[in-house]
C-alpha cells in the first residue's frame, strides 16, 4: 500500500500508522452526555467500502492525514492534512 502524503508525496505504508475511522476527529463537546461519548469512542459504521480514516505519517512529516480508502479493495482515492497548513504554527 502506498499513501500520497500532501506534504511528502507518495510513500510506502511502512512510514505510516493507522488510527481508525475519521470520526475520531469529531470530538464531542466537553458537556456532551456519556451516551454521545460512548458513541464517539466506540461505535463505528465500519463500512465495507470507501471510508475516511486517520493515518499518521510518523516516519515522515508527522502530519495526521485523513485518507479516503476502500476497505475492500484497499484503493486510496484521496488524502488531506487533518490540520491544514494555514492553521497553527507547527
Amino acid at each position, binding site marked *: 500500500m*502506498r499513501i500520497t502524503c500532501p506534504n511528502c508525496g507518495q510513500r510506502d*505504508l511502512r512510514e505510516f500508522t493507522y488510527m481508525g475511522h475519521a470520526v475520531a476527529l469529531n470530538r464531542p463537546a466537553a458537556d456532551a452526555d456519556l451516551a454521545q461519548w460512548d458513541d464517539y469512542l466506540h461505535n463505528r459504521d465500519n463500512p465495507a467500502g470507501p471510508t475516511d480514516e486517520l493515518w499518521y505519517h510518523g516516519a515522515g512529516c508527522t502530519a495526521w492525514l485523513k485518507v479516503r480508502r476502500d476497505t475492500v479493495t484497499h484503493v486510496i482515492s484521496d488524502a488531506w492534512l487533518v490540520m491544514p497548513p494555514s492553521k497553527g504554527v*507547527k
Partner: protein
Amino acid sequence: MMRIRDIGPAVSFTWDGKRLQGQVGDTLASALLANGQRVVARSFKYHRPRGIFTVGSAEPNALVTIGSGAAQDPNIRATVQEIYPGLEARSQNRWPSLGFDILAINDLASPFLSAGFYYKTFMWPRSFWEKLYEPFIRRAAGIGALSGQHNADHYEKAFAFCDLLVIGSGPAGLAAALEGARAGARVILAEDDARMGGRLICDNALLNDAAAGDWVDAALAELAAAPNVTLMPRTAVTGAYDGGTFGAIERVGLHLPHQPELPRETFWRISARRAILATGAIERPIAFANNDRPGVMMASALRSYLHRYGVAAGQQVVIFTNNDDAYASARDLEGAGVQVTLVDARADAVAPAGFAGRFIAGAQVCDTRGRMGLRAVQLRHGDGRTEWTRADCLGLSGGWNPSLHLACHMNGKPQWDEGLSAFLPVPGMVPGLDYAGAANGQYDTAACLAAGQTRARAALGDLGLSLPAAADLPKTPQAAARPMLPLWQVPGKSRAWLDFQNDVTTKDVALAARENYTSVEHMKRYTTQGMAPDQGKNSNVNALAVLADVTGRSIAQTGITTYRPPFVPVSLAALGAGAQGAGFAPQRFTTSDAASRAMGAPMIEAGLWYRPSYFPQAGETHWRQSCDREVGYVRNAVGIADVSTLGKIDIQGPDAGAFLDFVYTNMFSTLPVGRVRYGLMLREDGHVMDDGTTARLGPDHYLMTTTTAAAAQVMKHLDFVRQAHCAQMQVAFTSVTEEWAQFAIAGPKARGLLQQLTGQALDGADWPFMACGPIALGDVQGRLFRISFSGEMGFELAVPARFGAALFDRLCDMARDLGGGPYGMEALNVLRIEKGFITHAEIHGRVTGFDIGMQGMLSRKKDFIGKAAASRPGLLEDGRELLVGLRATNGSLIAGARLFTQGSDAVRTADQGYITSVAYSPTLDASIGLGFLRNGRARMGEVIRVKDHLRGVDILAEVCNPVFFDPEGGRARD
C-alpha cells in the same frame, strides 16, 4: 536418457553422495536426467518413487536438499537449482534410501488412507493422540528437513522502483520490455529462470527465419544497453500487493559455490507504476492410472530438456496429448533420434507433417508399468481395444493453464473460458497490472509478441510517456492450431494422480464429493489438493474439472480456489533479512553508556535503550549487595543516575499552556515560570496513558518529560491532539530526547555537590523543591530541575548531549568524594517503591486516576483528554482494584503474586488483586511492594494472603499506604 548435445564444460556434483558430471548451464534436473537418474524423490503420503516431471519452478516431484550442516537447504526444486562445482544434492523423505523406502508400505495400505481418513479415526483412547498417533503422523509427514542449526548464511532485502515492471521474459515480456526501453521508461524485466527468453529458448522456433534465440539475444542486448532498464534474471515475482507493490525473490548466490559475503537470495519490494504479467502458461497433465511413474513428464518439458539442455529424457517416448502443441515435442525428439509414439486423444487428429513415428488418433493412455522407472504404457484405442507398448518416457499434454496466479493475489477471480478450456485473468484484478501472451491465453508466438507490444504501449501511454512509433515485430512462421479436446482424466480402476505432491487422486476427489465436500474449497481442504509446495499449479484445474464431473456441474459453476502469495516458495531468511538478531530493533545508547559499561554495570534493555542495572564493586557477589549500597548512596549521601532516556518534548507558543491543560488532567497554564509540576495524562478512554513532570522554562515555553517506555506513544498522541483537536492553537513542539543528557543527583549531599560544581548557592529560597531554570557550567548552558524520583533532596541536571559523557564522569567522581556514586535501575526501582512512585508496572494500561489515588488530579474546571470517559460509573465505583502498599509480615513479596483475603482459597472467585512491584528496602529492612487490591484504600492495616502458585510463595502481608518512607515528603524539601 542421455546427453545428445553438449551445452558447456563439465561440472562435477554429488547426488546422494555419488559423484556425477553435469555441464555448465545445467539445472540439477537436467544433469540428473543426463545421468540416467530416474527416481529423484518419494511422494509425500504413499512414498511412491517419483521422477522429474517439469522443467520450471512449478515442479511437483523433484524436491531435493542442497548442502549440509547449517547450510542444509530443503525442498529445493531440482528444476530450478543450477549446478555448480561441488554442488551437494540429496533426496528427501525416504528411509533408509531413495531406492528402498520403508514407508512405501503406505502405498499398499492406500485404501485405508483415503481422503480425510484421519478425521474418522485415531480418536480412541483419547490420550493416544499426543502420545502415539500424532508423533507417528508427524514423523511420516513433512518433506525435507531443516538442519536445526541457526542460519549462518547471508540474505538481503532491497527496494526498487520503476514505471513498468515486466514479469516474464518470453516473447510477450521481451516485446513489452523493448517498448518500455524505447519510451525511456524505467523498466524492470524480472525472469524466474536463469536465462531470459521463456519458451523462445526452449523451443526449436524461428523468428525472422532464424533461430528464435538470435532475436532473443538481440533484444536482450538492446535492453542491457538501455540505462533505463534493469534486467533481473533468477528473480521470481512472488506477490502482488496494494498500491503497485510487488514482492520478488532473486537467487543471488544459490547457483554458485558458497561465498559468505554474497547473499544467497535477495527479497525485493518493487514499487511499479504499471506492470505487465507475461508469465506464460503451465502445461497440465492428464489423470490416468499410475500416471505418476518416474519417466512420466510434461510434453513441453521434454522439448525444453532437448533444446536447452541437450538431454533426451527417453529413448522410447510416448507422447499423449489432446492438443497440437505436443506435436512439436514429438517431432523434435524424433529429429534427435528418439523413437516416438504420438497418441492423440482427438479422433480426427492427423499426424504432423514429417513425423515418421507411430501416430494413433482417438486413443488414450490408460495405465503404466515400471515402479522405479516407466517401462510400458497401456493404450486404449477408440474402439476400446487396449495394448501395452514399451516406453521409458511418457510426455503428457492436457492443454495449458495461463500462469495468472499473480493476477489473483488481490482476491480477483479469473474467468473460465470454454473455448480455451482454461481460466483467464479478467481486467482490473490488480490495479495497474495488465496481461500479455500465454498468461492471457494467447498461445502462439506472434500473438504473444503483439500483445506484449500493445499492452506495454497502452500502459506507457497511461503514464503519459510519449512513445516512438511501434517497431516491426519479428516474423513468425504461420501456424494454425486445431482446437484442443478437453481431457482431464482417463477412466480406470486404479489410482490416477491429480496432485502429485500431496498424493491426491481422482478417487479422493470423488470421495470428498460423496461425503458432500462439494464446494471447491471443501474439496481442497478435505483432500489437501493443491496445498503442497506447488500450490496446485500442476493440478488445481484438473482437480476441479474432476470435481465438476462427479458433481454434475460445469467447471465455471464449480469455481476455483484462491491463489495467494507467494507465487513460488520464498526462504524465510530472505523475507526476514535485515532487521533480525541483534539488529531486530534499533539500539539507543545514553551518553553515559560507555562509562557505565567500563564500570562493569550490566546493561539491560529499557525499551530501545540500554540502562545500567547496577554498578558492582569489588567483593560484591550478588546484585542485591550493589543495589543496597547504591540505595544507601541516595538515602545517606549522593547518587548519580542517568535519566536521559525519559522522553523530553519541547513545547512552545502562546497557547502552550492551554495545550498542556488539554492533554494533562491537571492545570499547567497556571504553573509559574521556573517551576515544575507533576502531570497525569489519560488516553481518551479515561485510563492512564503516562505521567511525568513538565517544567515551565518561559512564558511560552514548556519542557515535558514522559516515561522511557511511552515516549513515542506520547509524541504521537500529542501530534494527534494538536492537529485534530487544537488546530487553532498557536503551539509547536518537538522531541528533544536525544538532544539533552540528563542526570539525577539525589541525596542529602546533592546540593553540596551541585554547589561545588556550579559555584552557586542553590538555596531553598532561589531553588525550592520543584524549581527549574537555566544554569551555567562554565561555558556550557545547562538546565537544572529540582525534582526527585527518590524522595531525597534531588536535582536533575541537563546539558546538551555532547557534554553528557564528560558530565557523567565528573558527577560520579564528585559523588564518590562525598561518599556516594552512581546508581542503577535496581536501586532506582527500590527508591521509587519506598516512596510509592508509580511506573508502567503500575500504570499498565488498565488503571484509572481513581485506581492510583489521583482522582483529585482530574480537574473539574476544564476539559481534557479522557475526562468524559473517566467519569463512566464503572470506573469510579466500589469494588475496583486500587493501588496500595504491601509490607510482608513473613517472607518476601514477589511481583506477579495474587492477593487473597487471609484464610481464603487461592482461586479466581476469591481473587482480590495482585502485586506489580516489589523491593527489599534496605532503608526499612523490609520486603515491600506495590499492588492493586479490591477496595484497597479502605483496607489499610488488613493482613492479606499473598499467593504465587508459580514460585511457591504463600505469605502474609499488611496493606499500607503506598508511600513507605517519609510520607510527609520533608526530605525532598528544605
